[in-house]
């Protein structure tokens, strides 16, 4: 069981699987009515791939990240399913094994960089702490490496002497990304890394992540509420709704031919910057309370195609949960309306 921690694991190719989630289910709370934040999701990430995971707040996307890092805080816990990293299940691993797995194999960039750095420690010292927790390395060498990595993300190496408050929001987010890169992990989980930033800074950072990915060859699990961002940036996109994955497809295909009504509604919630200015409707209603999710398809109370006039279909939609099925190569949809394999 120690293979996970081998430092020079055999190289994987793009067609292999780096991380695989099988039927991952996460609850908050125990007893009669726990809140099922993630309900049996399957997900797969290949080496060097950018997988976008999108959905609204409360859909469970951040919980997925917490489960992969095994940093869920009670009452959150994995109920069932497995998280396979290089084929090895990390659910139930001991804390000391996980400590090496985190940062070295999988690192994470949190939502608000403003709060992720220690305000009373110099940036360089935070690097040194993190690196020395994982490697036998002298302070001086760690600090030199920290400078190198900061330059990679476009920050002057002199900034190792700075305190977090002396940096702008965009720079702090870059520092966090640099820390995530420091031990050259194979997977970086980015949870809304640019949400608090301006569009121009956001664009700069995304371009940088793409360039770094080319150099370092890591894979990215990119979690965001902003699908429009993923359309440009991700290789594949998975859409989450109320704890389930409702659609997943290559980015270009999702952009051009979204099949799930929720995905369609989500894409139509972004007013365009060019073309005609038409009135949009968004998605009526609001996401369900996961303590008491709707029966059948969880989206049916908000779905424009769920109408009582088509009795058989309506009964299906309101009583039976649709399975996630492959309708075209690499394109999976969980919807009663989408049955046939197209093209």
């Amino acid at each position, binding site marked *: 069981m120690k293979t996970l921690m081998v430092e020079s694991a055999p190289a994987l190719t793009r067609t292999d699987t780096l991380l695989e989630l099988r039927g991952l289910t996460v609850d908050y709370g125990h007893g009669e009515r726990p809140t099922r934040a993630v309900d049996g999701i399957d997900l797969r990430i290949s080496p060097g791939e950018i997988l976008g995971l999108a959905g609204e707040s409360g859909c469970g996307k951040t919980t997925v990240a917490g489960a992969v890092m095994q940093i869920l805080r009670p009452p959150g816990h994995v109920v069932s399913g497995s998280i396979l990293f290089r084929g090895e299940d990390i659910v139930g691993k001991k804390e000391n094994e996980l400590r090496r797995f985190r940062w070295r194999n999988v690192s994470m960039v949190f939502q608000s960089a403003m709060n992720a750095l220690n305000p009373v420690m110099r940036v360089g010292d935070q690097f040194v702490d993190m690196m020395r927790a994982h490697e036998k390395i002298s302070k001086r060498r760690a600090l030199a490496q920290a400078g190198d990595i900061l330059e990679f993300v476009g920050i002057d190496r002199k900034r190792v002497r700075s305190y977090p408050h002396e940096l702008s929001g965009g720079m702090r987010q870059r520092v966090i990304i640099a820390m995530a890169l420091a031990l050259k992990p194979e997977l970086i989980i980015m949870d809304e890394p640019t949400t608090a930033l*301006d569009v*121009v*800074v956001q664009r700069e950072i995304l371009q940088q992540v793409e360039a770094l990915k080319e150099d370092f060859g890591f894979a990215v699990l990119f979690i965001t509420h902003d699908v429009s961002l993923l359309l440009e940036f991700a290789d594949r996109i998975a859409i989450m709704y109320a704890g389930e994955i409702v659609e997943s497809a290559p980015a270009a295909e999702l*952009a051009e031919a979204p099949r799930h009504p929720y995905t369609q509604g989500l894409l139509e919630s972004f007013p365009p*910057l060019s073309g005609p200015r038409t009135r949009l409707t*968004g998605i009526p209603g609001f996401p369900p309370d996961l303590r008491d999710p709707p029966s059948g398809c969880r989206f049916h109370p908000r779905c424009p195609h769920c109408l009582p006039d088509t009795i058989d279909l309506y009964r299906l939609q309101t009583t039976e949960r649709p399975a996630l099925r492959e309708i075209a190569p690499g394109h999976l949809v969980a919807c009663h309306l989408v049955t046939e394999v197209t093209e």
Partner: protein
Amino acid sequence: MSAAPLEVRELSKRYAIGNTLRRSHVHAVDDVSFELHPGTITALVGESGSGKSTVARLLARLYAPSDGSVLFEGSDVARVKRRRDVLRYRSQVQIIFQDPFDSLNPVKTVRHHVERPLRIHRVVPRAQVKERALELLETVGLVPAVEVAQKYPHELSGGQRQRVSIARALAVEPRIVLADEPTSMLDVSIRIGILNLMLKLKEERDLTFLYVTHDLASARYVADDILVMYAGQIVERGPVEQVLQDPLHPYTQLLLKAVPDPAKKLHAERIEARKSHASAAIDPTAGCRFVDRCPLAIDICSRVTPLLVEARPSHAARCHVTAPQPATERT
């Protein structure tokens, strides 16, 4: 179009930062002039720190301006001191804040939030307060109103909370609503609903909005006119469609390139990483504040502060290159 109910003239707000030995000044708002026309939505866009929220707060009388004036029906708002006059101004100009989680009192019901302004401003006779509160909740789409009125803020979703803020602002029957990033804390599928509500209020009640946002696409969706701010100054002003389809100022052009646009899909343009991260609003010297990031910069840009010049009919920019300055002007 009738006369502007609200006119902003050469408005400035400066803050001192640092200590007595190293004193600097942030020119958060500097020489900002514009008008809000009745029954229109004006978008005020810019990055964080550009001063856009400060403008909204100056207009709401939450801050006192360092210079310049805000004229409401011809009189200067900042000099209004008598409580009666302040109340009168507040009954005409209301503000909605970004964070619907922070701007409602967690121990009071929805009813309390909406009824309070009705009582303070004596909008309706006391006997009708309850009824009017329910009407307001219906106007903003919180139905069934009777049920919603009894709820506490924590029982509502973010979108519903923001609607309560809007209902509260509408209670005093204002003519102008200052909306400071009202959708940025909300989920994407909910945002359109709030924007549509603004459009509905504009059309049905002839309300005037100042919509402060960093989101260009939503500005295009709701606004008639747009003001683009950079480092405390308005760098471009004009009809929203004209500004966004054919921007004059290089900063507006940069913003447009950076925004993810579903219509462009995978064909987004790359942008140059900026070299300088210092804010151009701290102790500004003569010259254009965008000069360090500007691809078009010429010699004059770092010496002479450009003025906001109408290069096209009703479309103005603060740029030496794209909006040539009148020859007589100096710094």
